[in-house]
């Protein structure tokens, strides 16, 4: 491998990207737009769930419960309902996704036994939203419960821990932070880098075929390895810039806590970029038209990466054959590395398994990419 030739190719490629609006858009605009789309659009958090309230008691206590729900910010009041029948009507007309029912004996029960129940009715047509709304309701109830608890304890002169609380019925799991963003955003970064990386290099070889410059290039003594290295270097630099942008946005804009170390983040990110660039290059070698290569790069990275990388759907919940397939979806390794780094603060040692997966992916893909290109027209 000759450094002079690699440099000549890298410099030429950088000039071409710089002068090609389409490549520039992919390099710089695409990550930004995807970050907005995926970062906000795919957020599993739902704010201002429209809530109808059927308050059978209309007491000061019941008012406190309603205010507790509304002040959480997760719910907004759609309507106050006068009777039982109005619940069905409101649901049918999509006026709300949830109804809070406070029974007529709420205050009496609370005062007598220290326990009371409110009823939450959820429109389950959107299971995901329902689950989240139920989580929110649980959260709101729990906060109310601790408030009532302290008051009851103070009034009756007993220890707060010994008494009951306000329950939501049906009761569901409890999510302390109620923030899916921390979980989603690191995955979003991996998905964006996988998509953008493959797009960037998918054009690089097919462009030369399409414009007829490849025939000239392969008539020179340049080797296939020099060509690949020279082609990948400028995109590697762009990939690092994109990664810095996405990771920076995750930490400073989306406020995902970053608990790991920067060195591990850099090493694994650089490796992942190498993998995705190599994959795009492989496609570019195989498909000789720019449009075809970019379409294929989109198709074969978008679906597996979003579905099988564990970015939204947990891999360990998948059936065994799908789990096996996900082993070659290299983005899954970077997704687990990023989650580990961001949320758990794992070091390289703790991430050994996904890191090994990433290394193997890099070796295999770069080996395939280097072998795929032949300096031949037939």
């Amino acid at each position, binding site marked *: 491998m*000759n450094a002079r030739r690699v440099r*000549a190719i890298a410099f*030429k490629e950088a*000039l071409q990207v710089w*002068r090609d609006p389409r490549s520039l858009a992919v390099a710089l605009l695409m990550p930004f737009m995807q970050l907005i789309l995926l970062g906000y659009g795919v957020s599993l958090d739902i704010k201002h769930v429209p809530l109808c309230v059927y308050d059978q008691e209309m007491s000061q206590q019941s008012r406190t419960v309603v205010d507790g729900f509304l002040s959480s910010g997760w719910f907004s009041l759609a309507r106050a309902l006068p009777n039982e029948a109005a619940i069905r009507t409101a649901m049918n007309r999509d006026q709300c996704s949830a109804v809070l029912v406070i029974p007529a004996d709420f205050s009496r029960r609370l005062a007598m036994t220290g326990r009371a129940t409110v009823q939450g009715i959820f429109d389950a047509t959107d299971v995901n939203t329902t689950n989240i709304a139920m989580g929110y309701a649980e959260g709101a109830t729990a906060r109310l419960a601790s408030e009532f608890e302290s008051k009851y304890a103070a009034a009756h002169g007993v220890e707060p821990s010994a008494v009951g609380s306000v329950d939501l019925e049906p009761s569901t799991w409890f999510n302390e932070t109620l923030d899916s963003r921390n979980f989603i955003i690191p995955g979003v970064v991996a998905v964006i880098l996988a998509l953008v990386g493959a797009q960037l290099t998918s054009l690089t070889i097919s462009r030369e075929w399409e414009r*007829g410059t490849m025939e*000239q290039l392969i008539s*020179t*003594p340049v*080797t296939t390895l020099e060509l690949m290295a020279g082609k990948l270097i400028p995109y590697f630099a762009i990939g690092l810039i994109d990664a810095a942008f996405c990771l920076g946005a995750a930490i400073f804009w989306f406020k995902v806590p970053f608990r790991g170390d920067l060195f591990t983040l850099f090493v694994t990110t650089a490796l992942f970029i190498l993998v995705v660039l190599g994959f795009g290059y492989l496609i570019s070698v195989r498909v000789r038209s720019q449009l075809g290569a970019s379409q294929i790069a989109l198709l074969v990275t978008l679906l597996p990466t979003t579905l099988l990388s564990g970015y939204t759907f947990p891999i360990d919940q998948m059936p065994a054959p799908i789990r096996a397939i996900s082993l070659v979806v290299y983005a899954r390794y970077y997704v687990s590395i990023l989650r580990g780094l961001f949320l758990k603060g794992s070091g390289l040692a703790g991430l050994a398994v996904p890191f090994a997966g990433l290394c193997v992916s890099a070796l295999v893909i770069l080996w395939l990419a280097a072998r795929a290109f032949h300096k031949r027209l037939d």
Partner: protein
Amino acid sequence: MSSGTPAVVVDRLTKRFDEFTAVDGITLTIGRGEVVGFIGPNGAGKSTTLRMLCGLLTPTAGQATVAGYDVAREPEKVRQNIGYMSQKFSLYGDLTVRENLRFFAGIYRVRREDLGSRMDFAIRMAGLEGREDVQVTTLAGGWKQRLALGCAILHRPPILFLDEPTSGVEPEARRRFWDLIHDLAADGVTILVSTHYMDEAEYCNRIALINQGRLIALGTPRELKGSRLGGQLVEIACAPLGKALARMSAAPGVLDAAIFGDKLHVVMAEGGLDLAGLRQALADGGIQVGEARAVRPSLEDVFVRIVTRKQDAPGAAA
């Protein structure tokens, strides 16, 4: 490459694509410093042959050595010794003149101390002084082709393969291009150049006529024009041409007849009809005859004559 070995040796070189034989057993030896023209219609197999010589296509049968290296077994050694201009314009249109030159100088590892002078030479040669920083896509055809040649010779290759370098270029620029080719040949560069312009063949030391994948004639322009026709060429202005052609083809003593532009070219056997007899034969057929005169054959006449003779007698030797 030692001084004794020929620059290019082609031995029964054949290329088949599925059922189609693009190059059919071409044999040819090119000495150092020669300018050899590959002449033939589009699709004759010229580009395929050149691509095999550059190691870009694998020969189906036969072999070829370039600068002493086998094109199938040592393509990289071959590529170090050649400059190649492909048929389609193949520089980077979105780069400037200077950026293209610098790129190929890097690829060919032109020594840094030579870089400036080689690039200046290429720019001067292409007549692109003052346009060094212009994006190549905006240049006119003749400039593009000369720049492509400049890029192909940056590393001073002893052998040049030029595939239809003047295709689609205006006549004045074509002539300038051929001046460059002769300058290079004068410096000892071996040049194999393909063209479908018959008139350009006159600029070559030797000509290889190619048709349907086969080498149908090889020699200097003078040899081909002198010996290959086998008779005297007569140019006749007459009308209607089609009728005249039919009549002449059947006339006794006429070896060959073909339409060239708005005139008829007739090859007459020795001792056959004379000019007057020819006029008479045409006039008898109700054809208006204008001027008729003996002319020196062009290569196009030779080409047409050889091709028709082959088709009449498929077994005939070239």
